[in-house]
């Protein structure tokens, strides 16, 4: 593996997104482009209106549900681990462990390799393929939780806290705020793994994605819509999942003295939980935490690290301390807080 020419000669950030010149494509472009490779279906990565989209079949399915007509004029599915020549480069998708269908983009060009992680995590998740470390020269990593204060506890321990609260406050409804794609289904799967077999109630906005997960082979057990609850029932003692915005919304008044729960990596910091009026913060994240970020830099043996979004400053500092060349890569359009 050579060090020259510089990666910037063939891969660079543009206002439209991260552009690979010899392949003629962008990765997760925030603006509509001719050719896009999309790492996963979250809306800050999968934007509408591209002419050609390359992604895993699951990500394409997610995009079709979310974006309909805007999911890409021409869609091409690429299986995980299958190399594909595009222009002068070879592209391979490898699992990212973030949500169903999420992938890292591996680009080989004239003996140099770049890995774009997209969003990723290095922990088991029953709803998606586990992240695999890919040896590379250049690692382009996210840094949503790029501060050493972010260390996610084991998710099953957080679920145990939720279930303990349900037992203690059985006369109330536990209203769990979850991001609709990925976190929602993971929380359901974690509850099932913990032996919780009651129906899990959903806000209407979460239904389509749950249906898609089930159709793609991720079992969720019995899930029902809050709107379909028996007449007069305020779902006391039950677990209801809703988008985080619904926690303090009038919608929640239909529930019995709702106890606001939020499942997010941000819940590690008390002020963030208090800002949201959360009574039970659960630190459950679909992103790498700080030790995992460091572990990923080590495992991929990258000599150079570009940090795309999140807390770039701390991670660039850390990578430099580890003897890597490192820079922050300002990309527009990323939602820092979305989780």
């Amino acid at each position, binding site marked *: 593996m050579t060090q020259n020419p510089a990666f910037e000669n063939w891969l660079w950030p543009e206002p439209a997104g991260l552009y690979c010149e010899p392949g003629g494509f962008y990765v997760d472009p925030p603006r509509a482009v001719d050719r896009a490779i999309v790492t996963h279906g979250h809306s800050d990565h999968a934007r509408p209106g591209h002419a050609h989209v390359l992604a895993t079949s699951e990500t394409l399915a997610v995009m079709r549900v979310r974006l309909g007509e805007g999911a890409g004029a021409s869609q091409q599915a690429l299986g995980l681990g299958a190399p594909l020549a595009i222009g002068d480069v070879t592209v391979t998708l490898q699992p990212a462990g973030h949500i169903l269908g999420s992938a890292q983009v591996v680009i080989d060009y004239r003996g140099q390799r770049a890995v774009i992680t997209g969003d990723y995590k290095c922990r088991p998740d029953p709803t998606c393929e586990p992240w695999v470390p890919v040896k590379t020269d250049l690692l382009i990593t996210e840094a949503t939780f790029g501060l050493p*204060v972010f*260390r996610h*506890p084991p998710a099953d321990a957080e679920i145990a806290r939720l279930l303990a609260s349900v037992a203690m406050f059985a006369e109330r409804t536990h209203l769990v705020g979850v991001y609709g794609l990925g976190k929602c289904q993971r929380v359901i799967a974690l509850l099932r793994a913990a032996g919780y077999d009651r129906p899990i109630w959903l806000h209407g906005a979460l239904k389509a994605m749950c249906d898609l997960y089930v159709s793609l082979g991720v079992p969720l057990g019995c899930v029902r819509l809050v709107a379909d609850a028996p007449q007069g029932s305020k779902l006391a003692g039950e677990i209801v999942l809703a988008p985080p915005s619904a926690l303090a919304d009038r919608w929640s008044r239909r529930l019995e003295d709702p106890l606001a729960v939020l499942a997010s990596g941000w819940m*590690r910091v008390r*002020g963030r939980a*208090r800002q949201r009026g959360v009574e039970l913060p659960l630190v459950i994240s679909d992103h790498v935490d700080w030790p995992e970020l460091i572990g990923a830099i080590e495992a991929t043996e990258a000599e150079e690290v570009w940090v795309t979004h999140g807390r770039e400053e*701390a991670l660039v500092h850390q990578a430099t301390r580890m003897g890597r060349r490192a820079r922050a890569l300002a990309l527009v359009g990323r939602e820092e807080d979305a989780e």
Partner: protein
Amino acid sequence: MKAFAALLDGLSFSPSRHAKLRLMAAYLRATPDPDRGFALAALTDGLPFSFPVRRTLAELMERRVDDVLYRLSRDYVGDTAETVALLWPDRQASQRGEALRLADIVAELALIDRQALGVRLEAWLDRLDATERWALLKLLTGALRVGVSARLAKTALAEMGGVEVDAIEEIWHGLKPPYEVLFAWLEGRGPRPDVTGVPVFRPMMLAHPLEDEDWAGLDLSDFVAEWKWDGIRVQTVGARGDVRLYSRTGEDIGAGFPDVLGTLALDGVLDGELLVVRDGVVAPFNDLQQRLNRRVVTRRMMAENPAHIRLYDALEIGGEDLRALPFIERRGRLEAWIAHARPARTDLSPLVEAASKDELHRLWSGSRAEAIEGLMLKRRSSPYLAGRPKGHWWKWKRAPLTADCVLMYAQRGSGKRSSLHSDFTFGVWTAGADGVDVLVPVGKAYSGYTDQELARLDRFVREHTTERFGPVRALEPMLVVEVAFDAVQRSARHKSGIAMRFPRFSRIRWDKPAAEADRLEGLERLCG
């Protein structure tokens, strides 16, 4: 430590009193002695230590964590102790050794040399997880600040044991952490702790504000009147040569008033008002304020603002419990005791004689002396009842308009005051949507305090900030301020529906529990 940390964590996020009670009762039930007793102490009277840990923590972090990463983390989290708790390197549970017990930590902290604190702290932090580290650092500062009053913790204890909270209050001051005999009693494993011979606090009898309709229905021949002195309510308790002074919430404040207690030989429990009295004249409340909340009191302070207790009731004298007797008989006993004991710096609150309601009303409206807040009306036949029983005691506060409000938000001033939080938004209680009381803001004030008070207020703001919105800090709802104002008007612009005219600080009630601040309904009645 794990259970204690989980409790504090839960309490700090639970907005409702009910949920807090449930969490505390569950903890007290499930946690063995002596840990739960020390937790109870931490939640009520506090633990007998307080360490300023900021510098110690900074030194520890310097050795453990890269300084750039520490600074970035600190900037993000906003609180040093929390940053350290989150940032401290985790050890595998298997490498942490035996689980740390709260009781062991408390025992060591009570004796530890400040110089040695850093070393011990480091060893402890290595054995704890993030939530436990956060709880330990809170514990070290001596104040937990998780929105739990001593009274609420005792209420949880009462709930756990299936007894009335007043039954706990009555013996509380005769007990010490870790309260093993108390738990034994509450769990039916032992007798009610005997505190005979210990000068313990007795739950106080409180008065209702007198409203017009109460006044209209009142038969004066059933009542006696006293001046309502503008001091603080105190209970003086003596037994076996030990005399203590308790505030209304049962806090032992005797250490600040040796001038009164030193001369008092008492075997009994007396109720009265703590005042500053010079040459027989009661001084304004502000003078008394100079004496409150001080651990050390100098000769000079005592000479400048001599303390005095004006007595108006007796709960117990010479070992005889008088509480079941009618007020008028208790007063007779009190008069007899004073005549016999002739205590210095103590006197009897005189009765206010009036032949008719009209005359009493004239006396009330003419009561302009600064040291008098109005009148008290007490039913002659009333026994001494704990709490605030209706129809027995009335407090009849004179005009000008004032309201006891709770500080909710603070903002920095401008110019000379730009480093101080000098602009305050305050609120009063009202029933929320779910029936739980919530504070609603009713006004903003920027004046009425002295420079010294402002400095102390600023310190309070910095120590009790729960959230920041740009320049505005949300405060823990715990400080009561008596706000004076010219009028109240209805206002659609304010969430509370009312607006005060020219509100200003009248005085700061460091002594008053937030739960006893005024209610919105009271202010609404003042609207024209």
